[in-house]
Every structure is written in structure tokens, then in C-alpha cells.
């Protein structure tokens, strides 16, 4: 069994190999490229399932003793870094989620990307992404994680800008890279401080060092030092997982192909930040201030993004804000100490959000690349598979039993209240209400209501609907992992495991909040009991602010264009006119004096003779003064050396 864990490196290696093959060998053959890529990821999926099953079979043993393999990667004076793989329930779960969603997305892309000119390039990027993401999941130390973290960021950049001829895609890709780079600055800095302090970046060694040294104030400094490092490291997840205030890139990232949004910007890459916080939970756990901060940022992002989602009309943007909101959920779950709840929600969210994005892609194709939900409508009958699976996704995210989201959301909310965070609990509950509302708004407008005759829709091909069905299956049963004795939390937890039964009172309250949201959406968008327009006209300012996403983008653009670029221009001016001016000034003086001196070289014998004469006179005078012989006014005598 443990032999299998030794082979975990194959899971990222296969997609990397596929990337190399496509990039250097098969890029001219479309069929071969996609076949290689899909075969590689399916093999990885098989391995991931085998590993997940072994983990479940191993039970307590693997929970206590993760299987770690390390090889040396960089070894110089004062810097020693390994590369390796870690197999524990946390990484096992992530491996399964990533390979499953990636396989589904790649198969789905066979239909969605049909006829695209960049087919091979697309599958090369997909493979590169899968390899990097899986490598990140398996990382045994922070530097390894950071390396793959940046690589998935690169893939995200390449795939957002996949249709590079679109100016909007190009700008969105750039924005994503730059924004996450700001967060990565903090992560890099935190990592360097950590290494400086403990001399290692290995997770296990760091955790041990923190544990043994924590009581000893002299060694660790103070809790304050840990807090500083935790804050810096948390900047990375803020950028990557789209937490406020670095969330601005994710909605724009929807410029990429829809399957990419499903894989990278909903299910996998954006949860990397959550995963990092979970991996380094030993650090955050040691700093109450950091945990509080994470809880606050997460909760704020959850409600902030949900409120924006209400006022959006682009189907992918609604889903993107929903993703931001759910990422906030996972983040505040970690902040309130609901470690397994957060990871559980990460898993279920990956299933149902990928499902909904792929469903949205299916709809977008059906209505000929329109994305405004008001251009759709009545698709339920025309697209039964897409409709049904999307419905499952909506129910799951709204937290309705027995769908997956119910279990994970309930666990988070229950933990928030039990661990003494009533405000965060209230925010989470209200967000659940908003979530149900805007998701049902989307569902009702797109699938119910009158059909738009100009659309000529039909159901998508099998390559697209089969992944939908598989993901829908997991969006239902994924949550049932909470039910057995050895449930999800038994495997994935931090610290001591305590079995917690589902608190049905709290669960009931969450369900009621969700039902209220669904009912409100039903009343407004199906029954038209309340007119949406009248609400908008009553609160025009609120609507405008929400519609414009609280003007955060505008603020950032203003800062970049006026402050940074302005400063840059001033410095450039300074460089040309002051720094270079001084240099050129020195050169001018040199040249000027050279010119003056050159006047002496006239080439005329008379001038030379005159100069010579005067020189002799001057010389004589000098000598005369020097020797005090002013009376002897005989130059010849002096020159002849009469003295």
C-alpha cells in the first residue's frame, strides 16, 4: 500500500510530460494533442483514486503519519531545499478533486473548443496547469509550493489570455498576473522571514519547530513575530483566492474560455490560497490575531461579493462573484477554526461550481456566445440535461439537503457559532440567503420564463453533457461524506479529532435562510409579484454602487495611472535632465575647455613666435622675482647663466 504512495510523483509528472509532448512533438496534430492530454489526466485520476482509497483503508495510521518522500533540489551554503511529495488525507482529497475536475473539463473542452485554431496550445496549457496544480498539492515545503503556485498563476495568465487577439482578454490576463503578484510579494517575504527564523521551509519541520519553540519567547521572539509572518503569508492567499481587496482580477478572468473558468477560476487554482492556509495552519493557529483577521477578511469577502452578484447580468460574472463569495466562506471557516468544514466546502464547491460553470458554457454555446442572462430564457425544455444538472448545482450551492453544499455549509456555520463568532455566523447566514437568491435569479431567468425565439437552441453534444452528469453526481453525493462514523472530518482535521453530529437546529435555520432566498427569487423573477425594476428605481444609488462593484476597480486604475505612472514619468524626467544632465554638463565643460585650448594651435609661426617671446619674458620675470635680482635687466645674461 505504501509503495503506492511512493509513486505519487507520477500524478503531476504525467500531465507535465503531456505538456512537453504537445509543445514539442504533436502540436501540429490536433487529435493527438487532445488525446495525449486527456489520457495523461485520466491516468492521474486513476492514480489519485487509488491513493484516495488507500488513504481511506489506512485510516488512522495515515492521519497520524503522512507518507513523505523528499529528494534534494537545491543545496548551497546556507540554503537547502528539497522537492518531494506528501500524502495525507488533505492532499489525497485535493488530488482527487483536481484530477476529477481537470479530466471532466478536458473532456468537456473536446466539445466546447471544437474548431478552435489554438486547439493544441489549449491542451498544452491545460496539461501544464494540471501538472503544476498537482505539484502544488503534493508540495512538502513552502518553496516548492510557491514555485508551483506561481506556475499555476502563469497558466491562469496564459489561459485567461488564450484568445489573445481580444483586447479584453489581454487586459484581463495582465490584470490577473499583476494583482496576484502583489499578494505574492507578501508570500515571498513571509517565506524568507520563516527561513531566516527557522532555517527550513519544510512543513513538517516548521510545524515541529514552532511547536517546540512556541513556549520559548527568546527563540521565537514573540507571538507578534509569528503574527507578522502569518499576515505576510496570508497576502498570497488574498491575491490567489480573490479575497478583498485583491479580488478584482477574478471577475475579469472570465474572459478566458468557459471550461478554463470552471477548472482554474472556480474549482482548483483559486482554492490554492485556501489550501495554503490549511497546509500552514500550524502557523496561523499559533496567532489568534491572524486567525481573527482571516475570519474577518473571509466573511467580508463572502458578503461583499454576494451583494455584487445580485446586480450583475453576465452569466459568467455572476458565477465569478459567487465563487469569490464562496472562497470567502472557506477562508472565514479557517479563521473561525472550522478546518475540516473549510476543506469540506472546498471539495463540494469544486464539484458544484465546476458543474455550474460548465453548464453555463453549455448555455452560452447554445445561445451563440451571448452571456447576458436577459438574452436567454426558457432553456429548460430545449436543454434538459444542462437544465437538470444546473438545477442540482443551484440546489447544492443554496445549501438544500441532501445536496452537497448543505453539509459543508452547515458544518462551517455551526462551527462559527460554537467557536464564539456570532457576527461571522450572522454574516455567513445572510450570505447564504443572498447566495440562494442570486443563484435562483440566474436559474429562473435563464431556464424558466418565455423562450427567446431567435436563439434556436439545442442540447450540447455528449462530450459536454457527460462531464455535467458526472459532476452533478458528485454535487449530490459529495456531501454525504459527512455522514459515516469515519467521516470527512475524521480524515481531514487539525489537532484533536472530535466527532460532531449534525446540529439539526442550526441546519434548519440555514435551510430556512436558503429557502427564503429561493422564495424571494421565485416571487420576483417567476411570479413577478414584485417588480425588479421598482426595487431598482427605489434605490438607484445602491443599485449603481453594486452594479459598479463598489468602484474598487476605478480606484485602483486611478492609483496606477496617476500615482504610479506619474511618479515614473517624474523620475524619468529627473534621470534625463538631472542625472544625465550633470554627466553631459561635465562633458560640455571638458569639451569647452578643450575648445578654448585648441585656439592656441593656430598653425601660424608668427603667433608661436609671439607666444614664445612673451613666455620667455614671463619666465624671466619669474626667475627674477624668485632670486631678487630685479635690477639685472639683462635677459641674455640670465638665459646664458651668467650667475
Amino acid at each position, binding site marked *: 500500500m505504501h509503495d503506492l504512495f511512493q509513486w505519487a510523483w507520477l500524478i503531476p509528472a504525467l500531465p507535465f510530460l503531456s505538456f512537453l509532448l504537445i509543445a514539442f512533438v504533436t502540436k501540429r496534430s490536433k487529435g493527438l494533442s487532445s488525446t495525449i492530454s486527456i489520457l495523461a489526466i485520466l491516468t492521474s485520476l486513476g492514480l489519485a483514486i487509488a491513493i484516495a482509497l488507500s488513504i481511506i483503508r489506512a485510516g488512522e495510521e495515515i492521519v497520524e503519519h503522512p507518507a513523505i518522500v523528499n529528494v534534494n533540489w537545491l543545496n548551497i551554503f546556507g540554503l537547502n531545499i528539497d522537492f518531494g511529495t506528501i500524502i495525507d488525507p488533505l492532499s489525497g482529497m485535493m488530488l482527487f478533486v483536481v484530477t476529477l475536475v481537470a479530466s471532466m473539463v478536458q473532456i468537456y473542452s473536446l466539445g466546447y473548443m471544437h474548431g478552435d485554431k489554438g486547439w493544441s496550445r489549449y491542451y498544452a496549457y491545460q496539461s501544464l496547469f494540471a501538472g503544476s496544480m498537482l505539484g502544488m498539492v503534493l508540495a512538502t515545503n513552502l518553496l516548492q509550493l510557491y514555485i508551483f503556485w506561481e506556475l499555476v498563476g502563469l497558466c491562469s495568465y496564459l489561459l485567461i489570455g488564450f484568445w489573445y*487577439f481580444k483586447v479584453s482578454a489581454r487586459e484581463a490576463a495582465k490584470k490577473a498576473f499583476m494583482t496576484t*503578484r502583489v499578494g505574492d*510579494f507578501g508570500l515571498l517575504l513571509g517565506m524568507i522571514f520563516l527561513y531566516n527564523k527557522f532555517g527550513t521551509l519544510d512543513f513538517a519541520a516548521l510545524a515541529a519547530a514552532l511547536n517546540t519553540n512556541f513556549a520559548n519567547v527568546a527563540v521565537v521572539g514573540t507571538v507578534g513575530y509569528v503574527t507578522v509572518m502569518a499576515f505576510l503569508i496570508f497576502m498570497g492567499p488574498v491575491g490567489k483566492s480573490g479575497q478583498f481587496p485583491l479580488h478584482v482580477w477574478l471577475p475579469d478572468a472570465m474572459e478566458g474560455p468557459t471550461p478554463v473558468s470552471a477548472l482554474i477560476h472556480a474549482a482548483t487554482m483559486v482554492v490554492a490560497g485556501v489550501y495554503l492556509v490549511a497546509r500552514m495552519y500550524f502557523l496561523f493557529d499559533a496567532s489568534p490575531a491572524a486567525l481573527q483577521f482571516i475570519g474577518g477578511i473571509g466573511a467580508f469577502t463572502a458578503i461583499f461579493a454576494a451583494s455584487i452578484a445580485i446586480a450583475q447580468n453576465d452569466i459568467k460574472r455572476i458565477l465569478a462573484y459567487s465563487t469569490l463569495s464562496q472562497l470567502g466562506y472557506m477562508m472565514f471557516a479557517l479563521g473561525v477554526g472550522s478546518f475540516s468544514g473549510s476543506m469540506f466546502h472546498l471539495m463540494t464547491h469544486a464539484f458544484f461550481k465546476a458543474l455550474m460553470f460548465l453548464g453555463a458554457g453549455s448555455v452560452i454555446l447554445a445561445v451563440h456566445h451571448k452571456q447576458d442572462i436577459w438574452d436567454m430564457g426558457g432553456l429548460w425544455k430545449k436543454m434538459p440535461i444542462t437544465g437538470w444538472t444546473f438545477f442540482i448545482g443551484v440546489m447544492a450551492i443554496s445549501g438544500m439537503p441532501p445536496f452537497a453544499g448543505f453539509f459543508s455549509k452547515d458544518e462551517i456555520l455551526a462551527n462559527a457559532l460554537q467557536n464564539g463568532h456570532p457576527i461571522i455566523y450572522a454574516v455567513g447566514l445572510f450570505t447564504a440567503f443572498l447566495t440562494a437568491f442570486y443563484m435562483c435569479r440566474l436559474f429562473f431567468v435563464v431556464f424558466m420564463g418565455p423562450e427567446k425565439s431567435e436563439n434556436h437552441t439545442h442540447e450540447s453534444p455528449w462530450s459536454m453533457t457527460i462531464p455535467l452528469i458526472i459532476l452533478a453526481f458528485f454535487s449530490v453525493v459529495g456531501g454525504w461524506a459527512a455522514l459515516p462514523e469515519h467521516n470527512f472530518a475524521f480524515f481531514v482535521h487539525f489537532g484533536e479529532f472530535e466527532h460532531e453530529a449534525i446540529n439539526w437546529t442550526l441546519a434548519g435555520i440555514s435551510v430556512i435562510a436558503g429557502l427564503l432566498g429561493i422564495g424571494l427569487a421565485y416571487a420576483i423573477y417567476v411570479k413577478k409579484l414584485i417588480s425588479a425594476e421598482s426595487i431598482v428605481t427605489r434605490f438607484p444609488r445602491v443599485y449603481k454602487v453594486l452594479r459598479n462593484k463598489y468602484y474598487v476597480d476605478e480606484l485602483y486604475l486611478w492609483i496606477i495611472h496617476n500615482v504610479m*505612472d506619474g511618479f515614473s514619468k517624474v523620475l524619468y524626467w529627473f534621470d534625463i535632465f538631472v542625472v544625465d544632465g550633470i*554627466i553631459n554638463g561635465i562633458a560640455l565643460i571638458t569639451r569647452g575647455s578643450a575648445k578654448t585650448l585648441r585656439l592656441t594651435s593656430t598653425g601660424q609661426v608668427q603667433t608661436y613666435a609671439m607666444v614664445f617671446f612673451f613666455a620667455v619674458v614671463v619666465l624671466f620675470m619669474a626667475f627674477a622675482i624668485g632670486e631678487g635680482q630685479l635690477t639685472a635687466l639683462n635677459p641674455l645674461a640670465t638665459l646664458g647663466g651668467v650667475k
Partner: protein
Amino acid sequence: MSALPTVGSLSMLLPFTLLAPLVAMLLIVFLPKEESKTIKIVAAIGMFVSLALSLYAFYTYDRVLGGMQFTLTIPWIPDLGVSLALGVDGLSLPMLLLTNLIGFSSIYASWNMEKRVKEYFILLLILIAGVMGTFIARDLFIFFLFYEIVVIPIYMMVIIWGSTKRVTKEYAGMKLTIYLLIGSAFLLVAMIALYLAAAANGNPTFIFDELAARQELYSPAFQKVAFALMLFGFGSLISMVPFHSWSPDGYAGAPTAVSMIHAGVLKKIGGYGLIRLGVYVLPLGAQFWAPVIAVLAIGNVLYAGLIALAQKDLKYVVGYSSVSHMGYVLLAIAALNPTSMNGAVAMMFAHGVMAALFFAMIGFMYEKTHTRNITELGGLAHQVPRLAIGFMIAGLASLGLPGTVNFIAEFSIFISTINVYPVLTILGIAGIIFTAVYILRMIANVLFGPRRPEWDHLTDIRGPELVPLVLLGFVIFLGGIFPNILMGMIDTGVTSSGLAKILETVSQAKMGGLF
């Protein structure tokens, strides 16, 4: 000192490496100037031999043994202690390899050169050999001699084959040359002073290791003054703020190959010299000036990085970016610890490969589109995808993406300077954000966006033109994915050359400090 040559194992390796381009140069001298194809092939073969030999040296260098290897010592002016002493260790071998990688690539980057081909390649080969000589010299006199050799071809190549944009090529060439010469004048004074001080025991020498071994002969006051002279000389060569202004103008005016070699390796002589002569021979002087260097270094990183944001000409962006990156090298040198020296040499190597690739790609772009103005370019990924890939690899390496050798260099620098200059290092790390902004903007505006019909006639790079992309791109990723290949070599240089020992005495690091 014996009059016979001292011969180490494989001692002819380095002379052959140095002679290969010179032999090719001599052959070209005797070729008729119409035979431009033959001239290029001969130049390429010469550089290929040299590259192969330096790769062989890199491969066979005994890392366990360490120290100077492949040594050859031929006494030249015994009375003055001058000898033709060659040899490489873990510090100079990466630089030698870098010179050859870039030199070989620069031949191919000039493959479409049509103007006075014969003179061009003669000068180019002299330039490459000159740079190579500075890195394999074990003798200060020889080092200086090669350094002076470099100046002549640079000047002529900029004046004859350069391009006039914001400034004229004559101005650029003059500025470049005058800076090199003024720098070398200060170096000359420092060199003579050092020589005289070292000769106080009646046994004059120019050999680096010998000079370093006579620490007791240099008083602290002498070290401070001599190091200051070197700092000015080498500092202006590595474009230390405020002596950097030759660099963007010079690169913009120079032809592609000169930009590649100048930004790629020549300015690294400054960093190499500061380590080999400055830190190694005059550690107390280095210690005295280190805080000044560190502050100026961050000036480089932030000041030049911000200015790069305002540039419209591709070569100016890369020019200022190169000034900015040299700040990291200087910061690492100023930190004065073995890890940071590793980082400094790695950064010089990494930046060299990256900058050469950048300039090669920009050169091709300019050749094809006749513009380097970012606002006039756009959507080039449609018509010249391979060129776009090369440009993108250089850009990603420049912003220190993991997987490229540049990340390894940056990381080892940051991790070793944080103890010594915490605030400056944090500012330096903040510099990566500016780098990301100007690089990503440039990539977006030049490569992406709607297809522009005016570029439809362009042909993508192919055949010999691909050599810089393939070779330099390969090195960037190899060094980034398997860092021990390069870093192990540099580490040997730092630990076995006695540098680490010297650093122990002056190290400013307070290990385990809070910040």
C-alpha cells in the same frame, strides 16, 4: 619565481577556448569581404569550438577539489611580477560559460547583417575574446589588459552599426566608451596602488590569490581608499546608480550583438571584479563601503524599475530593467556573506542569459518591423509566434518566474540579505511588483491584441535565427528546474576559493536576528 611555465592538468583548455574565436577572426581577415556567408559560418564555428570547450570545462571541473583549475602560468615580465596566468574556479567558470553562450548566440542574432560584414564579425570576435579573457585571467595585469581590449570594438561597433533613436548612435557610443574609460582609469589607479602595497614584502605579484593572501599588508585606511576607487570603476561598469545613464542609451544605440554582449556579460565584469578584487582582496574596504553599496543598490532596483515603466522604446525598457536588476547583484555583494555571493554570481548569470535573449528577440523584431516603439507594435503573436515565444520567455525570466534560473538567483539573494539589510531587502522585493508591471505591459502591448495587417508580411524567425531562442531559452529553464547544476558550481567557488573564509571575518549577518 621560476621562469618556466607552470602547467596544471588540462592546462591548454583555457588558451584554446580563448584562441578559438581569435583564430576564426584571423581566418576572416584573410577572407574576401564579399564572402559574407562564409564569414558568418567561420565566426560561428569559432564560437562553437569555444562554447564546446567551456562546456567541457564546466563538466570536468572537479567540484570536490575546488579552487583554480585548468591553470596555466607563463611568466611574462618577471621583474614586475606579471605573468600570463590563466585559470578558472567556481566563480569565473559560470561567467566564462555565460560569455560563450551569449557570444555564440550573438553570432546568430547577427545572421542577417549585411553591412560591412567582414569588419563586423572581426570586431565582434575580438570583443567576445576580450570579455572571455577577463574571466579566465588569474592575474590582475592580464585582467586589466583584456578589459581595455574590449573598449575598442565596442566603440566602433556602436558608431558604425548602431541605430539612432532618442539619442544619436555617435552620442551613445561616445558615452559608453567614455564611461568605460573613466571607470578603467580609476581602476588603474587602484590596481597600481594595490600592486605597490602588495609588493612591500619585496616580491611583486599581480596574481589574484597572492594579492588576497597578503591581507596584512593592506592597512584599513588603504583598503577603504582602494575599494572606493574600485567601487567607482566597477560600479559604473555594472551601472550602479547614479553612474548608470550610459546603459539605456548605450544599449539603445548599439547593434543587437553588442547589446547582448554588453548587457549580458560585459557589465558583469563589474560585479565579478567587485567580488574577485573588491571583497576578496580588500574585505575591510568592502565592509566599510557595503552600506553605501546597499543603499545605491536599492536605488537601482526601485529608481530604474520605476523609470522602466515610462519607456516607449523596447530597448529602453530592457535597458532600465537591466539597471534595475543589477541592483540585486549589488545588494547581494553588499550583504557580504557566502550565500549572498552565491546569489550575486547566480544573478549575473541569470540576468545575462535573460538580457541576451531579450535583446536578440528585440533585434529580430526591429529588423523585421523597423520599429522598437511599443505603441507602434502590437499583435505580433499572430504573425511571428516563435519570436513571441522567445520574447515571452525572456519576459517571464525577467520577472523572476519560478522555473527560470532568475528565480533561483533572486531567491538566494533575498534569503541572504534579509538578515543584513532587512528594510532594503523588503524594498528590493517590492521591486518585483514594478518588474511585473512593466514586463507584462510590454508583452501585452507588443505581442497580443488584434491582428494588425501591416505586419502580415513578416516572416517568423527560422533556421539560424532560432539559435539564440533555443540555446538561451534552454539554459534559462535548465538552470531553473535543476538549480544544482549551476548553483553547485558557484557554491564551490564561494566556499573553496577562500572567499567564504574571508567573509567570515567581515560578515555583517547576525544570524537569527529578528529582522
